[in-house]
């Protein structure tokens, strides 16, 4: 039960304020003294709500210390916030809500806004504030999240101005019956000349490695994103190399188990889009669904076992006296030589008293970025089973500060054309009983992208 939702710019001025419940505000801000509110607040806000608005600004946005926790409690009121570039979205409540639900909603809200007007920026929000209020009215009712499916929303919240004159009564009632019906995410009567289907497996791999090359923690969080252009009401079935499914099937044929045993993966947990029939997943562990039209996220999952680490970072840091530091970093790519990794970036932190840096690298470009206190080494492309090296000499200024440099970890960014978790799509079948196209007529595209999450090596 979200009590209210505020969107702030980086200065803490309120751009959007929508209050769903009266309980927020009154006591929220007794704890602090507040100055005048932002210019976009207008008269819509009563004094009490203004208190809540100001409490968040004072205690989070303008806080002396950077606020790291996404949940802040001020005077028995909880503020849940997410930040998109310079924009803060904050959901406020006085009740004991499910925090995960609130964040899920906030992320969904970001997605919806991005789907309507692209990048979330102050400019865009100011230009679309009527639309945002319209959306908020639709996706949140008395603080309870409602249908936040972009596709469905787009059928009745449009940016093309008033269309009602052209819209017939039937169309309107059709929208109503669809939105309130069993399959709220897809309308009937969709027709495509070419039935096409795109499937993206997007994974981000996270790693923390010790200087000696020991894996301290590693996990992959992945998403299966689908873009469907299918006619009618197709029934889809998605299959992957999930260990449980493979083993279940493998019971019949023992040899298959041994053959595919290596290729199956253990999924730690997964969540599905609302279109997936969970009952069927529970009983048969098969993923079947009627997809929404257009792009959507079919599932999210996490794996922690048998992760393929695409790169290995070997750091070598030597302190030469008090005023010099020698750094040598080797990266090794650890995948099939036929594959190419892209957008590789290695970030080597430098001490705070760095006064000069000389870098030599065999491949790519490296630069000392003083504003970030790091050496950034960029490589456009790199094939599998290769290695590359950078060495740097860092000059230090002697300081009277006795504190030792904390040696933050070396981090890395990259993109590889395979799934580091080892996930494979086994099939995606489409059945449309009413219209006459079969599974074979559908054009299917599958793509794997592995990206780095927090990929760090201590040095």
């Amino acid at each position: 039960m979200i009590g209210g939702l505020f969107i702030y710019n980086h200065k803490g001025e309120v751009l959007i304020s929508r209050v769903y419940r009266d309980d927020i505000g009154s006591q929220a801000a007794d704890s602090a003294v507040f100055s005048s509110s932002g210019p976009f607040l207008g008269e819509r806000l009563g004094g009490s709500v203004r208190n809540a608005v100001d409490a968040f600004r004072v205690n989070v946005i303008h806080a002396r210390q950077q606020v790291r926790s996404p949940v802040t409690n001020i005077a028995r009121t909880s503020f849940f916030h997410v930040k998109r570039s310079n924009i803060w979205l904050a959901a406020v409540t006085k009740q004991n809500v499910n925090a995960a639900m609130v964040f899920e909603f906030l992320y969904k809200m970001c997605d919806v806004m991005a789907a309507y007007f692209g990048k979330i920026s102050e400019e865009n929000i100011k230009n679309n504030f009527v639309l945002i209020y319209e959306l908020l009215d639709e996706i949140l009712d008395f603080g309870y999240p409602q249908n936040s499916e972009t596709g469905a929303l787009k059928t009745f919240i449009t940016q093309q101005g008033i269309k009602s004159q052209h819209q017939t009564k039937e169309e309107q009632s059709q929208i109503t019956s669809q939105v309130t019906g069993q399959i709220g995410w897809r309308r009937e009567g969709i027709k495509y000349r070419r039935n096409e289907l795109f499937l993206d497996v997007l994974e981000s791999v996270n790693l923390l490695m010790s200087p000696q090359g020991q894996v301290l923690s590693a996990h992959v969080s992945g998403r299966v994103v689908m873009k469907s252009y299918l006619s009618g009401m197709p029934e889809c079935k998605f299959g992957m190399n999930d260990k449980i499914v493979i083993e279940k099937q493998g019971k019949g044929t023992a040899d298959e188990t041994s053959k595919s045993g290596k290729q199956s993966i253990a999924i730690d947990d997964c969540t599905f889009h609302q279109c997936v029939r969970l009952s069927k997943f529970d009983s048969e562990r098969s993923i079947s669904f009627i997809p929404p039209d257009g792009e959507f996220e079919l599932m999210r999952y996490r794996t922690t076992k048998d992760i393929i680490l695409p790169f290995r970072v070997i750091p070598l840091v030597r302190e030469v006296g008090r005023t010099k530091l020698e750094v040598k970093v080797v990266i090794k790519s650890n995948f099939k030589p036929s594959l190419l990794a892209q957008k590789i970036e290695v970030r080597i932190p430098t001490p705070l008293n760095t006064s000069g840096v000389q870098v030599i690298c065999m491949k790519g470009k490296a630069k000392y970025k003083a504003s970030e206190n790091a050496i950034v080494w960029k490589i456009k492309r790199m094939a599998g089973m290769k290695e590359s090296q950078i060495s740097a000499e860092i000059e230090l200024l002697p300081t009277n500060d006795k504190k030792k440099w904390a040696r933050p970890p070396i981090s890395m960014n990259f993109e590889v054309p395979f799934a580091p978790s080892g996930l494979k799509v086994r099939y995606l079948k489409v059945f449309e009983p009413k219209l006459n196209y079969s599974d074979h007529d559908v054009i299917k595209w599958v793509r794997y992208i592995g990206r780095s999450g927090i990929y760090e090596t201590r040095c």
Partner: protein
Amino acid sequence: MPAVSKGDGMRGLAVFISDIRNCKSKEAEIKRINKELANIRSKFKGDKALDGYSKKKYVCKLLFIFLLGHDIDFGHMEAVNLLSSNKYTEKQIGYLFISVLVNSNSELIRLINNAIKNDLASRNPTFMCLALHCIANVGSREMGEAFAADIPRILVAGDSMDSVKQSAALCLLRLYKASPDLVPMGEWTARVVHLLNDQHMGVVTAAVSLITCLCKKNPDDFKTCISLAVSRLSRIVSSASTDLQDYTYYFVPAPWLSVKLLRLLQCYPPPEDAAVKGRLVECLETVLNKAQEPPKSKKVQHSNAKNAILFETISLIIHYDSEPNLLVRACNQLGQFLQHRETNLRYLALESMCTLASSEFSHEAVKTHIDTVINALKTERDVSVRQRAADLLYAMCDRSNAKQIVSEMLRYLETADYAIREEIVLKVAILAEKYAVDYSWYVDTILNLIRIAGDYVSEEVWYRVLQIVTNRDDVQGYAAKTVFEALQAPACHENMVKVGGYILGEFGNLIAGDPRSSPPVQFSLLHSKFHLCSVATRALLLSTYIKFINLFPETKATIQAVLRAGSQLRNADVELQQRAVEYLTLSSVASTDVLATVLEEMPPFPERESSILAKLKRKKGPGAGSALDDGRRDPSSNDINGGVEPTPSTVSTPSPSADLLGLRAAPPPAAPPASAGAGNLLVDVFDGPAAQPSLGPTPEEAFLSELEPPAPESPMALLADPAPAADPGPEDIGPPIPEADELLNKFVCKNNGVLFENQLLQIGVKSEFRQNLGRMYLFYGNKTSVQFQNFSPTVVHPGDLQTQLAVQTKRVAAQVDGGAQVQQVLNIECLRDFLTPPLLSVRFRYGGTPQALTLKLPVTINKFFQPTEMAAQDFFQRWKQLSLPQQEAQKIFKANHPMDAEVTKAKLLGFGSALLDNVDPNPENFVGAGIIQTKALQVGCLLRLEPNAQAQMYRLTLRTSKEPVSRHLCELLAQQF
């Protein structure tokens, strides 16, 4: 100072600052700063030397970054380099950086000090000033140590420039305030005083600040400054506004300097030299005259400056308190301000008048403004001004206007701000008591007070009413009648119920004759409030009920029924339950005679300073004390009620019940047989004697404690309050007679004997001590055949003894007939360890001549010694535990008396310790152990006495857990052998 030329402006710095200001977010700012820091680092690291300009620019940037809240850990060296530059701007930035950023324990401090030293030695006044400013800004102890000796030299050097002298004076002031011990006093002090004659007003102003601060510490060294200050002041005051040019502020000549001079004069008493005094009075008069002149400007600065001087003048007049003429004029001037438009002026006027009211010369003049002040109390918008008005009313109150002021305050109380209500309640209570001529008025006032602001009436206030009513026969009936009426109100405050309950319980019989307030009516009225009250009040009411049974036997059945009710007998609160049980039993088993004895009317309370006053002082802090004590200085108002004025009833011999009310743990020598009987009965009630000891207090004690008035609200709580401030202050009694110490020594090891004897008077002592309590009987024998008049022995606690020892005295008769002996009982409670004995001051008139005598009361710490037996092993273990050097006290001394083992043994036993045999390997030696019992703590004590018969010497070693106790005991005991 040289102006900063355009070329010196640092473009890079300006660009950097504007970049930072344009940053959209915190992250962007941090990035920009990181970039700049890296740039500066590379510049500082660079091999080629930086020129002064860039160095200055980068140091400036670092300073700016630091002031934004980021850590800076380099650049100090560059800043120090800047100090040696010849350019003013570079030097200035260097000093700025150092005074902001360098901490005292830095290793650079030596370099910095060196640079400062060079600058101080240079002939360039601006450089010297910069260095002085840096010293003052850093102001650390190290700086003080390095330069405290140099600065006075610069200050008084004949060739120093004016600006340097000014800076030096202020710098020295700063160092002196930071660490006074570092600034050496010397011959320069005399020359500093002569700076008051300096041509340059800036130097004079700085010097006055310095002198004011210094003379507070050594007023005598700077006495000569009075005449100089006066002449300087008179020159300023009499000068036309145009004379001083730069130092004229909105037509007022040198206002700051004038104010500072006036402050300086306030450090000293009025000048003795008539000429100087005459000149000063003339000055003060001129200031007062000027206040009457029409303002020369409408600007607020003009009037502010003028008023600042005026108020400082008035406080000087008040400080001198010797010129009636000036005081009255000041008062009139303030009177004008009371109605000024400016709230601040009204506030200041009220505040100053408060101090004026305490002067005997201006008290009457202040009183004329009473209506204005009352009006201010009612109409002022600002609560702080109202508070000052209330203070002033309190200060100006005397016998003549007490009724008016108290009634105004009471009226104001109804609407007063919550913040000051409690204070006003206390003030009303004090004024009502102090100036009450008619005690019925007093009772009315206090009851009104409880009615209007019951919540803010603290315990002390209503304790005090009870004390006064109990001590004054004439108001008891009236009080009973009034509280009875007050209780009839449908809703009355709990404090009212408490007062009512107590007074009716004591004096209800005085109004029982009236059928409207017959005993059953009184009881039912009280009982109707019973259920609405807190536990403490209920407990008090239960005590009232048992007193009713004694006062009105006809209510016995009703009250017993109430006590017997399940809600009392089985009350969840153990205090109420116990009271109900015990009172019920008492009422049913005791005969009326016993009941009458046990529940006799409370004896009068000893006169003492009201605890309310103490509370008000606590509330206001020490500063307010002078204003509150004004009554003492006011000849017309003193001693109306506060003085020692024994009422006839107080002279009566202590009744048995009064004894019962004595110390709870003391042996009850005069306990009536009823108590023992009831005690036995209680044992019966508690079913089985075996269970009895575990019930906590022994039956007698429980019973005794029960018979005290209910603990939380009892007047006993007041008595236990260790603030017998009504005792004449130490200044009133003479020093102890020369033999006092010797007399005291006689009593270290014994408890009974003759304390003092001369041809007039003999004072005998009998005392007994148990644990931390003691009782002492003093016998005053008149050896002459003539009656002593106004005989008053009092006990005085010098120093902070009153927090250590509580001595409660019983009053004795004011006349002692020839040849007669009077007895005085002292109850003593040792609160914590003490070193000095209390003083006994005896004053009386013998044949018309006043006699005064001060003795040391034979109460020493060893009286509270409890002997402890222990085995040798235990003894040595404990001896070792107390092995810290400060825990031990040792004395080797020559024997004054023959060395007889038996006598020594007796003395040690008399001293209070247990004698332990077979502990010391040498049988000649004596070893003792004991515990000193005080209320706050117990001090274990071990002693060892080694006589050496050949040398006629003793060695005495004492070990206790408290250092002062060890030393004190050692000295006490050493004198005995």
